[in-house]
């Protein structure tokens, strides 16, 4: 048997040993760190605040700037050649402060917006609502998220109305999110 053959056979044996031993470790590590539990409730508790979804809209650049003419965030997109490939998604939630202290709670710094099936995920500014909430008080907040073809795949849906919008507060160990099952498209 040549030396090269011995080495090749040794590599084969090592591979077999690795294939036989590693499943035990794989099962163990995945038992210690299982996938996140998905919590599906109408509202979620996050950082002593109860968050309930209210409504969601998808705007074109023009319709968003018409609705919110004082907001500077997406004015720069108007007039561009590819303006029609951008959309702004807004989601409004109510936030109830269940603690005994005044709280500062902003959707921007506490959550991420996901849109499926176009597989968009993005953060954005709070465009409406107060981020300072007194104890026991409920206030609404609206977050606006920019959607473009560089980060989402429009070909995955025939119409934006098919999309589900989700605001995610935590991904692990539980996926805490609020879902908006119906979306209004504003053209």
């Amino acid at each position, binding site marked *: 048997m*040549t030396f*090269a*053959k011995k*080495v*090749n*056979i040794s*590599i084969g044996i*090592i*591979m077999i040993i*690795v*294939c036989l031993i*590693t499943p035990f*470790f*794989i099962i163990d*590590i*995945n038992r*210690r*760190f*299982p*996938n*996140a539990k998905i919590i599906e409730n109408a509202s979620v508790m996050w950082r002593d605040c109860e968050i309930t979804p209210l409504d969601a809209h998808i705007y074109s650049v023009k319709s968003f700037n018409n609705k919110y003419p004082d907001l500077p965030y997406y004015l720069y997109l108007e007039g561009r050649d590819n303006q029609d490939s951008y959309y702004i998604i807004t989601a409004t939630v109510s936030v109830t402060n269940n603690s005994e202290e005044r709280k500062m709670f902003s959707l921007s710094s*506490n*959550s*991420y917006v*996901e849109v499926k*099936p*176009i*597989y*968009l*995920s993005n953060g954005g500014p709070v465009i409406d609502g107060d981020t300072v909430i007194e104890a026991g008080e409920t206030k609404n907040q609206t977050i606006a998220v920019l959607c473009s*073809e*560089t*980060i*989402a*795949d429009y070909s*995955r849906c025939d119409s934006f109305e098919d999309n589900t919008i989700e605001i*995610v*507060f*935590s*991904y*692990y*160990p539980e*996926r805490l999110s609020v879902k908006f099952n119906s979306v209004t498209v504003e053209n």
Partner: protein
Amino acid sequence: MKRLFKIEIDRIINSWGYVLSVVIGLILVFIQFFVVIIPESNNILSGFDGSFASYPKSIFITWFLFDDRHPYMFIFMIILPILATIPHGGSYHNDLKSGYIKNIYSRISRKKYLLVKYITTFVAGGMAVLIPLIISFLLTASVLPSLTPVMNGLFKLSGNRVMADLYFSKPYLYLFIYMCLYFIYAGVFATIALSASYVFNYLFFVLLTPFGIYYGLGVVSSYINNPVLKSFGPQCLLYLSQIRLVRMDVMILEPLILGVISFAFYWIRGNKDDIC
């Protein structure tokens, strides 16, 4: 034909080329495993605070082919065609030059020999690339959890990439498809050397031809920069994080077209050419 397969497999197992190829691949994956994966596995919850922007360490962030923060994956991608070609890509050229082929053709038909040579070169090239990847994956999966990717920016793929929905829902299937692609691409590039045996007299150039085509396609792709075709450089097509936009049909058609062209050239010349 079975006997010829056995002879060719024996040649591969006995060849230093196969040893060299697999060992180089294993060295790269072991270095990445000990330098990157083991430190991460010692603190899986490092940086995790429960917020949307954090997540425990997952195999789908730091496994070898996802790890673009370190050079090991890039080195592997650069030398991929060489790793695929060294095991058995030069054997046909050696058979032609040494006259061994005359012994073969006096015993079995040309067509059978050419077919067996093509298949064994394809499989040897594919396996030489796949074995280190499989070992790396198994070792990494045994120390890092297989947490499903989420869309919080920590996982490299964005939503507009090919098979993004698969990556975020069935990541193991996504990886399996890519491993199959690596096997096919490696096999195809290895078999390009068989056609190159008719063009070059020196083994060095025969072995280098797949590497040249691999890079040539990348250079042409970046020059053309077509928005419809997107990127068709093999390195971009095989990049798991899809840093450049690619198309699924290009990922499948490119090795198919390359394979058909190189096989056709190899087959026609192999059947027509005199061997004396």
